[in-house]
């Protein structure tokens, strides 16, 4: 008696351009022309976003943030894909894409408001072509698809003009792949050949549920049955992620339609600072994945294979220190919202009855404050 499905092979057909040991390898479909300086720049990104993460966790421990969703282990997936974007491309994150935000030029402090509880996102997606975080799992995949439909209607695909052709990149997790919305986004984007790239960070966990709870076959295979290609990339390899995402975005821009990328990686921290993975995770797994660290391999490459100028690593370290100070000081200085701001952006045009509620609310809060003083 054989089941229709066989066990999931752990790492099938995974694109890799830099081994965990730091060796460059070639892949016929994904040639990557990249200078050592450019690799060094990626290294800098990786280190800095890991630093953002470290600082945010510390701030959470000190009570400055209510929560933090760590990206530890997923730096390469995020930097590789984020750096494949062009300025006028649009990115739709889930809630863990601090590294992508970094690539878009979003100040890390901008991200902290949500986790500190001073706002719900609170920034303009248009400023850096990076949407606010979406917490309802999978919902953003449809937004990205719709946005891509808009791009098509604006005539901004397949013109051949690199300043005009636009792609959309949307992030979601392995857990999210089970949501109806994500599959509907696959249906839509395939049906209308939308310029959208679905970037699934398979970090092996959806909180406590291993990816096998969602699917017993590799996730990258999901898209073929919807009518577009899927590919699995070593998500701990920044070069492979860059190359694979670049190709998918190029395809999207040139009107060849969507691609699903599964970045095979690992969540090296708890789901969020509220989580306790000792209840469900084997310490062994973490050890295995530590050997595949996304930063170590780039450092190994830069140290051993490239002629990285002496002092480079120190410079990055100094920059990382400065960034940490920026975050620590900036976080504490984030302005507390005013009570009346709660009412500000419920509507573009505030109805009279809400204005009345606001005025009552403000008057009441003031009366209490006076009474307390």
């Amino acid at each position, binding site marked *: 008696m054989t089941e229709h499905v066989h066990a999931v092979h752990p790492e099938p057909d995974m694109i890799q351009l830099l081994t965990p040991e730091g060796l460059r390898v070639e892949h016929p479909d994904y040639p990557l022309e990249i200078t050592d300086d450019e690799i060094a720049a990626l290294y800098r990104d990786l280190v800095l976003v890991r630093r953002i993460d470290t600082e945010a966790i510390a701030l959470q421990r000190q009570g400055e943030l209510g929560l933090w969703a760590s990206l530890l282990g997923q730096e390469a997936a995020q930097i590789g894909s984020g750096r494949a974007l062009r300025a006028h491309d649009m990115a739709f994150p889930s809630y863990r894409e601090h590294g992508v935000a970094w690539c878009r030029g979003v100040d890390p402090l901008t991200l902290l408001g949500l986790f500190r509880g001073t*706002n*719900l*996102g*609170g*920034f*303009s*997606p*248009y400023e850096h072509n990076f*949407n*606010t975080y*979406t917490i*309802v799992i999978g*919902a953003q*995949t*449809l*937004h*990205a*698809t*719709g*946005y*891509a*439909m*808009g*791009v*098509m*209607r*604006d005539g901004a695909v397949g013109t051949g003009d690199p300043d005009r052709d636009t792609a959309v990149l949307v992030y979601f997790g392995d857990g999210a792949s089970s949501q*109806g*919305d994500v599959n*509907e*986004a696959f*249906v*839509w984007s395939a*049906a209308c050949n939308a310029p959208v790239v679905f970037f699934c960070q398979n970090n092996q966990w959806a909180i406590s549920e291993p990816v096998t709870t969602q699917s017993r076959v590799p996730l990258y295979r999901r898209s073929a049955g919807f009518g577009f290609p899927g590919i699995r990339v070593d998500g701990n390899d920044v070069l492979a992620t860059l190359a694979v995402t670049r190709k998918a975005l190029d395809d999207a821009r040139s009107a060849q339609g969507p691609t699903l990328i599964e970045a095979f990686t690992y969540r090296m921290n708890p789901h969020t600072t509220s989580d306790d993975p000792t209840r469900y995770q084997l310490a062994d797994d973490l050890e295995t994945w530590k050997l595949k660290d996304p930063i170590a391999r780039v450092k190994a490459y830069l140290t051993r294979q490239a002629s990285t100028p002496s002092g480079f690593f120190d410079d990055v370290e100094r920059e990382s220190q400065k960034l940490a100070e920026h975050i620590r000081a900036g976080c504490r200085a984030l302005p507390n919202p005013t009570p009346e701001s709660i009412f*500000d*952006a*419920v*509507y*573009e*045009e505030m*109805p*009279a*009855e*809400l204005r009345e509620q606001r005025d009552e609310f403000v008057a009441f809060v003031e009366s209490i404050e006076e009474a307390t003083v």
Partner: protein
Amino acid sequence: MAEVTMAKALNNGLRKSMEDDPKVLIMGEDVGKLGGVFRITDGLQKDFGEDRVIDTPLAESGIIGTAVGLAIRGYRPVCEIQFDGFVFPGFDQIVSQVAKMHTRSAGHVRMPITIRIPFGGGIGAVEHHSESPESYFAHAPGLKIVSCSNPSDAYWMIQQSIASDDPVIFFEPKRRYWAKGEIADAPDPLHISRVVRTGADVTVATYGPLVTTALEAARVAADEGHDIEVIDLRTLSPFDMPTVLDSVRKTGRLIVVHEAWRNVSISSELAARVQEKAFYSLEAPVLRVTGYDTQYPPSRLEEEWLPNVDRILDAVDRTLSY
């Protein structure tokens, strides 16, 4: 001016919006060649092309979710939900995304999305085709909810809804699609209620399909010597409370009428507000004539189940007996 049906008025209104603003898109199931199952979008795909009148795959969450993305990109999507009972697969995208995106982005992102829903019963249909889900949506901040009751409002209100920078759920009384009326030269503001019959004894507030019914009841009541004021609410979120309160302060009596279930509904809210804001003016409690708190019945029983002239008159008698 010639009379047109509400269906045609909506069609004309949609056409006008599309002509006025190239960012307006229509999307939904069967809205293209078929022109929608009620033909409200008839001919629009032919005239504006498949890029602007989009037959979507069959999934309501997808329709709303992609509309959100289109809105972020600067478009003004008008989504058609084929029947009231089929909006629920899109509920999450409506209440957690459409309604919240503006607040989430601190006002940077606008959601000028119109969601058209043919609603209500009385057409002899099967399950899920006769519901009145407006109360669910009125609970959610961030959404605006309106309903038209006649061709002129249909024509103007659909354009105003599309022009609104806030998301609007637009409830169309499907059993009145074929009723005819003249189109006014200019619209009232979108979010006002309208006294469609003045009267001194009792206020009846309703909307959508039952405005006609309430007016009929008022005529019958007049024969019985009762002078009924009828308000077409038009806007369900926000409410236009001044109009309702002025009327109640005059008549001292209010009956709220809708097809939707009674429990936790539009009429609950109106009753709650009116008893608070016009406490000393009320000579009788606010009464409600609504769908019963059961599933919408099989069509052979819908006439009994739906609020009708008799049930409104009964409530008039009851309120006057206080």
